[in-house]
């Protein structure tokens, strides 16, 4: 899992969050988090969710774009 399925951030932005094991202690799946766009995913999910090219374009995220901020902290300044 080298890049983010949602924003294509590079590997150095991808954090390994948790490894799910079975009762024998064998690896079943791994959860990753993208520090650029906050997408979180499991490598066992259907490709439609975790493959950038198969995901609907509508759901891509460009972290550089201005997204709405809920209760912007700047309003207190």
């Amino acid at each position: 899992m080298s890049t983010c399925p949602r924003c294509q951030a590079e590997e150095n932005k991808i954090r390994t969050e948790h490894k799910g094991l079975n009762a024998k202690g064998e690896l079943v799946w791994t959860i990753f988090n993208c520090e650029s766009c906050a997408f979180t995913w499991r490598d066992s999910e259907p490709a439609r969710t975790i493959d950038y090219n198969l995901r609907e374009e509508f759901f891509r995220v460009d972290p550089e774009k201005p997204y709405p901020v809920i209760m912007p902290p700047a309003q207190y300044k």
Partner: protein
Amino acid sequence: MSDKNPPLSDKALEVARRIGSLRDFLEFLKENGQCINWSEEVYPEPDIRNVAVAAGRDSMNGPAVIFDNIAGYPGKKMVLGVHGSFTNLALLLGHPKGTTIKELFYDIISRWGADEPLLDFIEPDKAPVNENRLTSNFNLYELLPLYRINEYDGGFYIGKANVVSRDPRDPDNFGKQNVGIYRIQVQAPGEFTLLSVPAHDMGRHIMAAEQEGVPLKISVMLGNHPAMCMFAATPIGYDESEFAYASQMMGSPMRLTKSGNGMDILADSEMVIEAELMNGVRSFEGPFGEFPGSYSGVRKIPRFKVTAISHRNDPIFENIYIGRGWTEHDTLIGLNTSAPIYAALIKDFPEVVAVNALYQHGLTGIISVKNRFAGFAKSVAMRALGTPHGTMYLKNLIMVDDDVDPFDLNEVMWALSTRTRAEDTIVIPNMPMIPIDPAAEVAGKGHRLIIDATSFMPPDKLGGDSKIVTPPSGPEIDAIAKVIQLLQNGGQS
């Protein structure tokens, strides 16, 4: 107002006394064939979503589903659909299987306004929720068998938490403690985002904490008494306690204790996550498949860090499937959306018989009313649009006569077919509307539709034989008016 509430039935009280926690309720549902175990191995995605959607198809009688064999989560249990069918709600309120939605509606109405808080406080060291306590190395991904609820959700959501917070400027005030359901996205092993807006109690608490630079502590209760989830979503006043309210509605005491960070929490919940607002931090959150059946977009929202976790032995993680209906969310909030609209209308219009606002949180509502005279039902509809919930949600209103059960869609369709005159539909353009209405051309603004499907009524003609009065007029009267003016000013005539 409590003296006006009829006493609960023996069966309702018996059930209320027996059920003190999620576990108790699951056992009770099992005895009644309303809870099943899914023990074949499932992957979190897409298997859990698939089972949840299939179970949700039967909104009347679908069971709760306990998953006890989830790949990557050996030994862990997760339950969906606890409030997934009206039969499950009926059992909770002490009714048999086969109870109609209309009967449930009247039951909730009859409990409405009870104001005798029934709360027992127990010491934290005796509370089952404190059987296990973690104070470091938190890993929500490991503790909770999370799944991606809808395929394009931005992450893994906790969709059915009851979150307790207190006004950070008045932290000792029990009444200003708020319990609400807010969507939570896990963002790191020990951090999560929580969506609230300034209008919510939680939103006010967040803004107050950041403005004054004081900490905001919260307790996130998971796997709760089933009445808590049902009634924490009900709009009540800022100074009223949701705990008191839920116990009143059940007619039986609820057990409270103190969380490690000073909140009142349910003593018998499966898990309580204590957390603190990361002041000034905003993180990407969403999309999330919401109740209209559409995704709400990506936002930057407040973030919290976990400070401690308490949980029972072998905790059962309760979550929800929500998305394009019918889903558990529709059943969970439907009757509690309908009841306050009814309660508001009945004050002015005792002719209102019942309100069905089950559909997508009331985006469509059906009101049954005893029509007094031509146009009366339309006036009632206008009043409904002015109720707190109606202002933002009631997009389509269908008005039916008192002989039509608004919860029976076959009857409603009959009324639409036989009693609607196209002339008696009203469109009010450009009204306020919840921003997530998928039909909106401009978010936050929408048109209202009223279909008056009540039968023809003659107009109220009392006083209809009026004739204009002809008062005396002319120079003589003008002269008298001048005299009156002079007298008033102390002059002589």
